[in-house]
């Protein structure tokens, strides 16, 4: 196995036992990027010089006795979605508006990852401003799915998912406002976590919709995901929406059995235009969970069909406000540099918030949001977690939906409700349809990430989908 194919857990052990150095590990990732990035376009910026410098420093620290307890990610190459402010490293949000923007500070999560010893290998491609579900809305060209380059990798964290599944890094970060971590994770055969809203600080991460944005990450395994959440989770003085909830050790109970855990399957999700092949994979996944001892029950989330409509009012409204700052005065180019999708969402949001329309649209959507949250609260009184397919369809071909914005928005139908309710979701691989990955999401009450990891880990170890590699 090449070094860049390792998981974080394996790399931690290899580095600790001096089987290889961080410089060697990082070079393996950089070589993979050189080899495949021209085809995949997962990276906007590759930090070749600085990352090798950081890797060397990591090796020095290790030889001086720096421990895994103090720096769990020492020397591990991580890629960051290009929404994460990185001091001194260009941060574009995937948009020509910020094509030359160099942040003067690090996002809190970036600081935490660096403090844990991680080395930053590059900034990944995305739908501009996180507006998208496929990666095709990037101003720097679409990212291709490494499993079949004619297909989309999912979005908006397209580059992060693609880079990871192509072994260009050992983990990557993303944001999930309506599914933008879970969808690309499911389309790229990797694990994607959308934490509880407020579990991870949003400070320094270019905002899309401030009441919906969730700061997540991609890893090859569920254990790796828990390792990362241990580092990124926690209250931040710079983000007033991070509650002071304790950060448990998320790796501790991974091995706990799933026996007796009640898992709900919402009946509304299994009828809404679900692709037959995806449905088959999902039913197989349910059988596996049952075999592991979980109790599968049907539940109802009655307002499911209104989630997408509520989302596509609330999100553009908040985004129109957040994007008002891009006027070319303090940073970036002027507003004529916005792409089509950004213009669409800004105008949609401006309209739904404007005088005379606010009550009919934004206020109404906020009320429906309450009902959707209540649906989940009621369901979680009867069951511990909920599972659904992440996407109603397998990955689609590049170009297939790009001329029909509404069709593109409908791909989010299963993921947006978690953002509206503020609950966490873990996307795990559940197999392949026509040799393209599909995933299952595990949803739980707020701050139940430990339970999600437990269920995900048991499922992962039983199915081993994560061991498959793309043919590239």
């Amino acid at each position, binding site marked *: 196995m090449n070094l860049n194919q390792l998981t974080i857990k394996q790399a931690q052990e290899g580095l600790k036992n001096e089987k290889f150095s961080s410089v060697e590990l990082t070079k393996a990732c950089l070589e993979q990027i050189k080899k495949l990035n021209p085809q995949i376009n997962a990276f906007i910026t590759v930090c070749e010089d600085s990352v090798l410098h950081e890797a060397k420093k990591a090796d020095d620290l290790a030889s001086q006795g720096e421990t895994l307890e103090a720096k769990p990610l020492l020397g591990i190459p991580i890629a960051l979605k290009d929404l994460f402010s990185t001091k001194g490293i260009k941060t574009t949000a995937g948009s020509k508006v910020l094509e*030359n*923007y*160099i942040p*003067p*500070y690090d996002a809190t999560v970036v600081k935490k990852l660096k403090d844990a010893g991680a080395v930053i290998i590059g900034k990944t491609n995305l739908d501009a401003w996180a507006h998208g579900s496929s990666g095709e809305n990037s101003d720097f060209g679409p990212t291709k799915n490494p499993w079949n380059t004619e297909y989309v990798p999912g979005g908006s964290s397209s580059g992060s998912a693609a880079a990871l599944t192509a072994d260009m890094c050992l983990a990557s970060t993303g944001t999930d406002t309506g599914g933008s971590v879970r969808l690309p994770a499911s389309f790229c055969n990797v694990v994607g976590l959308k934490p509880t*809203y*407020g579990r991870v600080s949003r400070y320094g991460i270019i905002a899309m919709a401030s*009441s919906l944005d969730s700061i997540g990450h991609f890893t090859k395994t569920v254990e790796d995901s828990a390792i990362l959440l241990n580092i990124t989770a926690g209250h931040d*003085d710079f983000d*007033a*929406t991070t*509650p002071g909830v304790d950060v448990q050790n998320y790796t501790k109970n991974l091995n706990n059995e799933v026996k007796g855990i009640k898992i709900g399957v919402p009946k509304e999700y299994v009828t809404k235009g679900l692709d037959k092949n995806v449905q088959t994979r999902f039913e197989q996944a349910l059988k596996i969970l049952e075999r592991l001892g979980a109790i599968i029950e049907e539940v109802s989330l009655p*307002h499911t*069909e*209104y989630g997408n*409509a*509520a989302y*596509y*009012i609330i999100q553009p409204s908040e985004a*129109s406000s957040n994007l*008002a700052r891009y*006027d*070319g*005065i*303090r*940073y*970036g180019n002027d*507003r*004529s540099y*916005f792409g089509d999708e950004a*213009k*669409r969402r*800004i*105008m*949609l949001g*401006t*309209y739904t918030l*404007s005088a005379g329309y606010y009550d009919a*649209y934004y*206020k*109404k*959507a*906020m*009320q*429906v*949001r*309450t*009902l959707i*949250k209540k649906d989940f609260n009621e369901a979680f009184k009867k069951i511990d977690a909920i599972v659904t397919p992440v996407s109603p369809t397998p990955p689609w071909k590049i170009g297939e939906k790009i001329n029909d*914005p*509404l069709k593109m*928005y409908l791909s989010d139908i299963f993921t947006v409700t978690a953002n*509206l*309710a*503020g609950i966490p979701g873990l996307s795990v691989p559940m197999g392949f349809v026509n040799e393209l990955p599909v995933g299952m999401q595990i949803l739980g009450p*707020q701050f139940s990430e430990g339970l999600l990891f437990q269920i995900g880990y048991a499922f992962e170890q039983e199915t081993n989908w994560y061991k498959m590699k793309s043919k590239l």
Partner: protein
Amino acid sequence: MASPRGNCETLGYFGIITKLIMKIDVGHVAKLANISLSKGEQFKFEKQLSEILSYVEKLKEVNTKNVETTSQVTGLENVTREDETKPSLSQEEVLSNSKSTHNGLFKVKAILDQ
């Protein structure tokens, strides 16, 4: 599909007639949002945005009588800190990405005459 000027349009859509009740005044909204559009873009966005609005109108079916609004899901209120100054970015760092500065300030177009 031709798009006649007027307040209502009918579209054949999967055999069901859908009436576009709202037609968004893209020119006005673009002005509010400080975005300039060509005539062609205006026409394109008018059609796309009207379709999207037609879809989200679905929410009218939901009974929201006496339902509270949810604007945020943390339940937090009045998050404050002590009013103390702390180190922040330097003036140089703050100005570093601007194309137009003068005497350590951001330079902008005049909005008042004289």
